[in-house]
C-alpha cells in the first residue's frame, strides 16, 4: 500500500482515539464544569483492564484471561467508571479547584500502582502480545479495519453525548454550571448529576484507553504520560471549543495534526538539538494553547454557536 495512505490511516486512527478522550472530557468539563486533570488515570485503568482481560495467560503477571475483545472493552469502561465513582463520591462535594488536585493525585496513584504491582501489571516491563482487533485480516486490512472501528466508536460516542446534551439531562447539567442554587431550588440533587457526568466521562476515557492499547499491541506505564494524554486532550478540547460536541472532535484532529506534524519539522533540526525536540514540541503546543486562549478563548467552534443553533431549531419547530 502507498506509504502516504498508510500514514493517513494511522493518523486518523490515533486522532480518532484522541477524539474519544476529548469527547469524554467534554462531558466532564464542557457540559458540567468538572475540572479533571487526571484524565490519564482513567485512560490507563481502561487500557490495562482490557489488556488483562483479553491477553493470553502468563506466569509473570495476573489477569491473562484470554477473553474476547468486546469483553475487554466493556470491562475497561466498567473499571474506569468504578474508579470515577469512588473518586467522585469523595471529591465532588469539594470546590472545583480541589477536584483538580484530587484528580492529579489519583493519576499519580494509578501510575505508581501500574509500575510497582508487578504481580498484576508486569511492572515497568509492560505487557506485550496484546491481541489486536481484526488480526486475521493481514497488516493492511487490520489497519483499515481498526480505523473504521475507532471512527465508529467516535460516531457512537458523539451521537450519545449529543442526544444526552439536548435532553433534560443536559439541561440540568448546564443549569448546574450556571447556578447551583436555582437547580437545588428546583428540586434536583446537584451532586447526583455531577457524579453521573464524571462517571460517564471516565467510562468513555476507559474505552479510549482500551482502543489505544489494542491498536498499539503493547501496554506499559510509560505509554500513559500525563503530558501526552491529559495535557494534549485538554488543549484539544479548549482549541476545538469546550462545550461544543463537534468542537471536541475537530480539536482532536487539528491538534493531533499539529502535534504529529511538529515531529516532522523537528526531524529537520541538526542532530545536536534532536534530544530537545520533544520538549520543543510540547512548548509549541503550550504556545498554541496560549494563543487560542488570547485570541479565540471559546475555541474554534464555540458553545455559544451551538446553543444559538439549538434555540433557533426550537423556535423553528415551534409552529408545528
Amino acid at each position, binding site marked *: 500500500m502507498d506509504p502516504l495512505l498508510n500514514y493517513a490511516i494511522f493518523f486518523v486512527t490515533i486522532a480518532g482515539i484522541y477524539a474519544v478522550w476529548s469527547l469524554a472530557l467534554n462531558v466532564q468539563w464542557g457540559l458540567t464544569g468538572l475540572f479533571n486533570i487526571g484524565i490519564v488515570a482513567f485512560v490507563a485503568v481502561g487500557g490495562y483492564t482490557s489488556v488483562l482481560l483479553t491477553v493470553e495467560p502468563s506466569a509473570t503477571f495476573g489477569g491473562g484471561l484470554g477473553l474476547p475483545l468486546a469483553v475487554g472493552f466493556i470491562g475497561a469502561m466498567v473499571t474506569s467508571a468504578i474508579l470515577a465513582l469512588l473518586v467522585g463520591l469523595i471529591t465532588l462535594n469539594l470546590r472545583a479547584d480541589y477536584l483538580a488536585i484530587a484528580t492529579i493525585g489519583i493519576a499519580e496513584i494509578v501510575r505508581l500502582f501500574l509500575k510497582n504491582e508487578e504481580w498484576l501489571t508486569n511492572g515497568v516491563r509492560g505487557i506485550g502480545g496484546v491481541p489486536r482487533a481484526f488480526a486475521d485480516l493481514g497488516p493492511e486490512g487490520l489497519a483499515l479495519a481498526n480505523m473504521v472501528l475507532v471512527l465508529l466508536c467516535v460516531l457512537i460516542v458523539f451521537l*450519545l453525548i449529543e*442526544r*444526552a446534551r439536548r*435532553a*433534560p*439531562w443536559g*439541561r*440540568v447539567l*448546564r*443549569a448546574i454550571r*450556571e*447556578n447551583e*442554587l*436555582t*437547580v*437545588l*431550588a*428546583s*428540586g*434536583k*440533587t446537584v451532586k447526583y448529576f455531577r457524579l*453521573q457526568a464524571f462517571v*460517564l466521562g471516565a467510562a468513555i476515557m476507559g474505552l479510549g484507553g482500551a482502543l489505544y492499547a489494542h491498536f498499539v499491541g503493547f501496554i506499559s506505564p510509560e505509554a500513559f504520560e500525563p503530558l501526552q494524554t491529559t495535557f494534549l486532550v485538554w488543549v484539544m478540547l479548549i482549541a476545538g471549543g469546550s462545550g461544543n460536541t463537534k468542537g471536541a472532535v475537530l480539536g482532536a484532529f487539528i491538534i493531533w495534526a499539529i502535534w504529529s506534524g511538529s515531529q516532522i519539522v523537528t526531524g529537520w533540526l541538526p542532530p545536536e538539538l534532536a534530544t530537545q525536540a520533544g520538549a520543543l514540541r510540547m512548548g509549541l503546543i503550550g504556545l498554541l494553547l496560549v494563543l487560542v486562549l488570547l485570541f479565540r478563548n471559546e475555541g474554534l467552534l464555540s458553545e455559544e454557536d451551538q*446553543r444559538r443553533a439549538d*434555540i433557533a431549531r*426550537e*423556535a423553528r419547530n415551534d409552529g408545528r
Partner: protein
Amino acid sequence: MIKVEHLVKRFGGLTAVDDCTLSVPAGSITAVIGPNGAGKTTLFSMIAGFLKPNGGRILMDGDDITGLSPPTLFHKGLVRTFQIPHELSRMTVLENLMLVPPAQVGEHVWLAWLQPGRVRAQEKEIRERAEEVLQFLDLYRLRYELAGRLSGGQKKLLELGRTMMIEPRVVLLDEPAAGVNRTLLGKLTEAIQRLNEEQGYTFVVIEHDMDMIAELCSPVIVMAQGRVLAEGSMAEIRRNRDVLEAYLGVVED
C-alpha cells in the same frame, strides 16, 4: 402548616435569627415584614433547607423538617423564590421554566438514549405548561430570549414562574413585588390570590409593599432583630407601637 420553634442562626458574631418562633396557618397568605436586616431572608433560607439552623426546629404538618435538603423539601411541596433573582442567565426563558418539573424521564441519561420518543412526548407537555405560565406572566414573547437579558422586574416574574411549574403546597416568596411595575403587580397579586383560593397553596411572603400586603395577606408577622415583634391583621399591626418604632415611620398611619 409550617411551625418554627426557637430557631437560631448565627453568622460569626452576628445573630441573624434569634430564638424565632412563629407559625403559618394552612391555606393562608402570611406576610413577613420588618426592617432590613431583621432576618427575614435568613429565616426563609432555613425553612427551605438552604441554611442549617444553629438551634431550634422547623415543622411542616407536624413533621420535623429541620436540616432537610432543598430538593427533599421541594418534593414535599415546599418551594421558594430568591430575593435577588437567580435566573439561569445563559439559558432561554423557556428553558428556565422547563428545568423545574420533577420526575422528568429525560433527566435519566439512559432513558434519554433509549427512549427518545418518551422524552419528547414529556418535553412537549412540560413545554406547554411553561408556555401557559409565560403567557400568564406576560413573558411569552420573550420565551427564546436568554434569561440574562430580561429586565429586573421580568426576572422577578420568572422567579415566581418557577414555582408555578409544579403544584406546590407552600410557596415562600422573597420580595416578589420589588422592581415589578404597577400593572404587573396587580396581576401578580391576583395570581397569588387565585392560586391560594383555587389551588389551596399556602403562601409566605416577604414584602415591603404595604399596599400589596394589606390587600393580600393575613396574618402579618413583623420581625425585628431576628425575632417576632408582633403578629396580627394589617390593621392591628398598623396600630402597634413597637412596630411603628421599629419601622420609624416607614409604615404610614
